[in-house]
């Protein structure tokens, strides 16, 4: 059932939000022991919200169960970013996005698992957060909107100038519905945009990014087939700077910013507590060394390195300038094309045993398709395009800043 139909049924009292919520909570409790989809189940909050809706079924998302990724603050609900260092932390405030969802009647059921601090390409979730690769690997849809369209207040920062929040759901219609609720200017996030999404939704001409077709031919075929079905005019286009330089630029900025964001975790104020009977340097080092995982440490070290006095200009500043060129390159293409198309991932979902064999650099390479749009802050959407050996393959559409309507228009037609 699409979210809109469900919400209408809640409003006409055909469906009880409490009943649905109880059912989902039971289901989660049954399977969570095995799969650990959830870091925290917010049973009390969920039932309270559901009861409120049953009494007074109002709002665009009335009674809709939504899970929140564990990097979004929910007041009083344990929020850890899946990292040991934040264990036990209950934020004293809500993320703006969470407030917006609750205002429109959504029922927050819990915090879903992720790689610690959003690092890493392989995670499983179907919820609200930074949508990346899981979308493609799970065969669901996800939209990452224009940078600043959705307030980041209360999102535990990974990289402030790259982080975007967007929904993940089964249907494109649901993405549009939820984005409509969570978007909008928020004075608490100085980078949030005062402009709204552009009304224009017509898609006349599409550019197929040639460099992204250098993948497994079977993935390429699925993408091309999907494009043919779409019945729009398309041609191959080039993004030479983006395809070569977006990845290093993205990762330098991400790690440099992340290494400063992660400095605050030192065993004081919240989360894991450190020893107070030690000199501060030793106490901080001990907590951080013990509670950050390997990948987090690797990124902190790389990020710290790229902003050190002697290297800062060559890495961090250079990456910020490259970002300007990448944005310009996209903007040039959007003068001619309404949308750009590529696969979402260079491969299909690997097995856990294969993942374990990958080196750090291979992991980062998995993001090669999404780093360009993320670096440029442009909206992109991934939907399922077909299957390869029973594994889902995602197709990704990218639009100019604030052109989300075009993405939804195409997505709904697929």
């Amino acid at each position, binding site marked *: 059932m699409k979210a809109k139909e469900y919400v209408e049924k809640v409003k006409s009292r055909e469906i009880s939000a409490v009943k649905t919520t109880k059912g989902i909570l039971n289901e989660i409790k049954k399977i969570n022991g095995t799969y650990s989809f959830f870091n925290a189940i917010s049973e009390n909050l969920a039932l309270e919200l559901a009861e409120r809706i049953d009494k007074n079924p109002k709002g665009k998302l009335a009674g809709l169960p939504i899970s929140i990724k564990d990097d979004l603050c929910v007041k009083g609900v344990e929020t850890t970013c899946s990292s040991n260092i934040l264990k036990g932390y209950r934020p004293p405030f809500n993320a703006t996005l969470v407030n917006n969802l609750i205002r429109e009647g959504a029922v927050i059921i819990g915090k879903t698992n992720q790689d610690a601090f959003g690092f890493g390409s392989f995670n499983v979730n179907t919820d609200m957060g930074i949508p990346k690769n899981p979308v493609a690997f799970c065969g669901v849809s996800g939209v990452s909107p224009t940078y600043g369209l959705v307030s980041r207040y209360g999102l535990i920062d990974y990289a402030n100038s790259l982080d975007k929040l967007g929904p993940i759901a089964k249907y494109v219609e649901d993405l549009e519905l939820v984005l409509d609720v969570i978007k909008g200017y928020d004075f608490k996030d100085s980078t949030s945009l005062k402009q709204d999404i552009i009304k224009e939704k017509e898609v006349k001409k599409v550019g197929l990014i040639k460099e992204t077709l250098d993948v497994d031919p079977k993935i390429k075929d699925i993408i091309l087939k999907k494009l043919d079905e779409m019945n729009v005019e398309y041609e191959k286009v080039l993004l030479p700077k983006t395809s070569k330089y977006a990845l290093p630029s993205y990762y330098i900025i991400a790690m440099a910013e992340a290494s400063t964001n992660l400095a605050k975790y030192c065993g004081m104020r919240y989360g894991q507590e450190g020893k107070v009977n030690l*000199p501060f340097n030793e106490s901080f080092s001990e907590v951080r060394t013990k509670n950050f995982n390997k990948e987090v440490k690797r990124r902190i070290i790389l990020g710290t390195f790229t902003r050190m006095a002697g290297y800062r200009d060559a890495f961090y500043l250079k990456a910020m300038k490259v970002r*300007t060129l990448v944005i310009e390159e996209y903007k040039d293409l959007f003068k001619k094309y309404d949308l750009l198309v590529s696969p979402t991932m260079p491969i299909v979902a690997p097995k856990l045993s294969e993942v374990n064999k990958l080196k750090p650099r291979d992991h980062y390479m998995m993001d090669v398709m999404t780093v360009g749009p993320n670096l440029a802050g442009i909206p992109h959407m991934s939907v399922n395009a077909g299957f390869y050996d029973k594994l889902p393959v995602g197709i990704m559409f990218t639009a100019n800043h604030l052109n989300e309507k075009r993405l939804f228009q195409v997505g709904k037609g697929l």
Partner: protein
Amino acid sequence: MKIDRKILQSVASNARLKLSKKEEDELLPQLNEVLEIFSGLNNLKTDGIKPSFQPVEVKNIFREDKVNKCEEDMLQNVKNKEDRYFKGPKAI
């Protein structure tokens, strides 16, 4: 550009992380592999290009100088506290 053991140690200590000899051995080649990808940026000329701090340009965002008291207690998450102070490790 390469990270050698000495740089790694100084970066780790700057980031308040302790690494064992074994961890250093494992990290060094990994970091240098990634750094090689990073160094690829040098092939792109950026003379005279302005850096983009955010992907979408926003400027001159202010709030008015008004007081709004926060009702939440910021000490609620810690056991290490004393007389409404946060308790921390030795600072001198």
